[in-house]
């Protein structure tokens, strides 16, 4: 469809001036997008390109560094610490994404009713999302202190043995998932709530009149209506989980015994604590590739879906 517009302008108008050719039909538009373009270029694209180059270098950021080709990426293949960092990130994502999206949907459905003080509940569930990860870290490090924390004394009261929580290598990552959920659930709830309130009441009423039970209404009307939001949240939360850093930094610093060293924390450790900026960049690029793949998957998924729908609607298709 852009072809028609283009051919119309080129055929009717005389040869456009260089200025027009450079800046388009509405030159002033550039003035409007210039600030954000500069920001995106300066803050994102240029550093990204620079980091990409860095990943082929042995560099400590302090001295000029030298080219090592693929050596950083090859070394990654043999690095047991990198492998375990990837494992931690995957485990965290595998738990955090379904729990936050599923939990968010459940809580949003509960809060989408006419109940007393619903405003208070909605606020309460969203407040942790606004909290900075650093504050969250300090809060939970006190609550979960193995010796003096509130959590252990409460569990002691119930007759449950003391837990190590963030100090126990076998538990720490799961505890982090819990803290992450505490902070991240609110976002999913708010997005789901907004989507739930967009579903026309008449549809539900009609279904109810037709005798559909609540579960059927949920499955046949609510879920399909939430589909775009659901997919958005899945992608968003996955990217969020893959980028986990601040919580780890504020609570465990990758410990105990490396049990919570996730990929981004590993990048930080390599680049800014051990001065292996080139190697750190290579790790970062592997992660970037993984995130790109997630985005691509979403895009392809959308394409396939649209193609199916079009085929279904095409004459001859099932109607």
């Amino acid at each position, binding site marked *: 469809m852009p072809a028609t517009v283009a051919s119309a302008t080129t055929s009717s108008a005389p040869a456009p001036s260089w200025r027009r050719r450079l*800046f388009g039909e509405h030159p002033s538009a550039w003035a409007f997008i210039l600030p954000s373009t500069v920001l995106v270029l300066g803050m994102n694209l240029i550093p990204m390109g620079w980091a990409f180059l860095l990943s082929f270098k042995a560099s400590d950021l302090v001295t000029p560094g030298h080219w090592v080709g693929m050596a950083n990426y090859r070394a990654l293949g043999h690095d047991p610490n990198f492998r375990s960092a990837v494992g931690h990130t995957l485990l965290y994502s595998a738990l955090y994404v379904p729990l936050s999206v599923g939990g968010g949907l459940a809580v949003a459905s509960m809060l989408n009713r006419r109940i007393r003080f619903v405003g208070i509940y909605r606020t309460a569930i969203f407040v942790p999302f606004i909290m900075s990860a650093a504050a969250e870290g300090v809060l939970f490090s006190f609550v979960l202190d193995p010796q*003096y924390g509130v959590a252990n004394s409460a569990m002691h009261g119930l007759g449950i043995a003391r837990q190590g929580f*963030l100090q126990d290598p076998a538990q720490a990552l799961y505890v982090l998932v819990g803290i992450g959920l505490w902070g991240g659930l609110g976002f999913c709830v708010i997005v789901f709530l907004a989507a739930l309130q967009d579903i026309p009441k008449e549809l539900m009423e009609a279904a109810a009149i037709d005798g559909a039970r609540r579960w059927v209404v949920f499955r046949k009307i609510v879920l399909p209506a939430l589909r775009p939001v659901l997919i958005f949240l899945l992608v968003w939360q996955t990217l969020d989980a893959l980028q986990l850093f601040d919580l780890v930094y504020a609570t465990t610093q990758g410990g*105990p*015994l490396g049990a919570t060293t996730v990929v981004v924390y590993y990048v930080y450790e390599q680049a*800014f604590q051990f001065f292996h900026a080139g190697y750190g960049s290579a790790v970062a690029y592997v992660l970037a590739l993984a995130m790109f793949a997630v985005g691509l998957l979403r895009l392809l998924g959308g394409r396939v879906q649209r193609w199916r729908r079009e085929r279904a609607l095409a004459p001859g298709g099932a109607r």
Partner: protein
Amino acid sequence: MRRWLIIAALLCTAIVAAGCGGGSDNGGTSANGVVTLKFWPGQNDIPKQALDTLVARFNATHPHIHISSDSGGVLADEMLTKVTAALASGSYPDIAYIYGSDLANLARSSKVLDLTDTVNRPSFGWNEFWPAERQAATVDGKVRAIPALTDNLAVIYNPKLFDQAGLPYPKADWTWDDYRAIARKLTNAATGTFGAAWPGAGGEDTTWRLWPMLWQQGGDILAPDGKKAAFDSPQGVGALTLVNQMATVDKSIYVDPDPNSEHMQQLFVNGKLGMLIGGPWSLPDMVAAHEKYGVVQMPGYNGDHTTIAGPDNWVIFDNGGARTQAAITFVTWLTDPAQDVVWDRATQSLPLRRTTLASPAYKAYAKTIVGMDLFAKNLVNARARPTIGTYPQISHAVGEAIVGSLLGRTKPADGLKQAEQSANSALSGAPY
């Protein structure tokens, strides 16, 4: 598409030009002959106020130099990241506050000034600085920084808990076995009281507390040539085994999960911790909480009570002759006893120079905080960590071994063996 490329290219040039433009200088001297210096002290609260006062005094008394102190928007913990980025961009400050353990890495940059000749001038008084400070400012035999702040570790104890347990207060000639025995007696699970504490997050705060135990027995972190690790020795294993036994058998050590080791400090202030290995920075909290405490030097092996100091530094960056000279003038002035006293009081740190320690102003101040004089006297017993670029990796590896021993997850000998392997691999230049 073409259009996009052209515009993108234009913008790139603009940004790069702007980035460089900010850093260009004419030796830092403005038309009226005043040299302006960028000073990143990375402090807040009381230390910042004290520095601001000192800077104002310097600016008033030195008409040809103007110090502009803005911290670069970060505090000392983030200073290294900030300075690294600043160096990469080519627009860096004249003076920055750098942690002792970061100096060796930063000193690889040729923009970090070599101050060997400067400090060796008789008027500078390099020998007035403590051995640990001089050691921590020296990388590969060259002086690359001026000491900015110094401390050391000693044992702070709670007399009330000693009285309750019917124990005499620790004496200066005590041993690590005494330390273990006392800690066990002070520990009381029923009241939630611990005899001792150790940071359990695995950072440098976990690691550096082990080094005095190693040094006191004649062990060391690195082999004399500096190319191999040497901490996996009978001395190292002995020290770590003691810590391991205290934590897992006696259960007399509180393992602090907080990355900033603040829980153990809090515990002491709340009267639940008998002995805290800490520095002069620990004292103000206790004074503020009106909790009685005493300070005694570290326990020893065979009568050796060597401790560790972790001095931080002022690093001066090369921004051309005039600015460099002005920066040296300022930092020299700042470490002079008259200013040193003000700074020490604000940061609760120890005198940078012996001459400060002897000054009446410092003596008057030290009297106001119990134990401060002991920390100051302890400086002659203090050593510094090796100033090598791979130290952070060595520290990380040993930190894991210590945490493993504290939590009873690894045997001290196995942990140290593995740590030494990692350290040697780091020393040989491998990335992990």
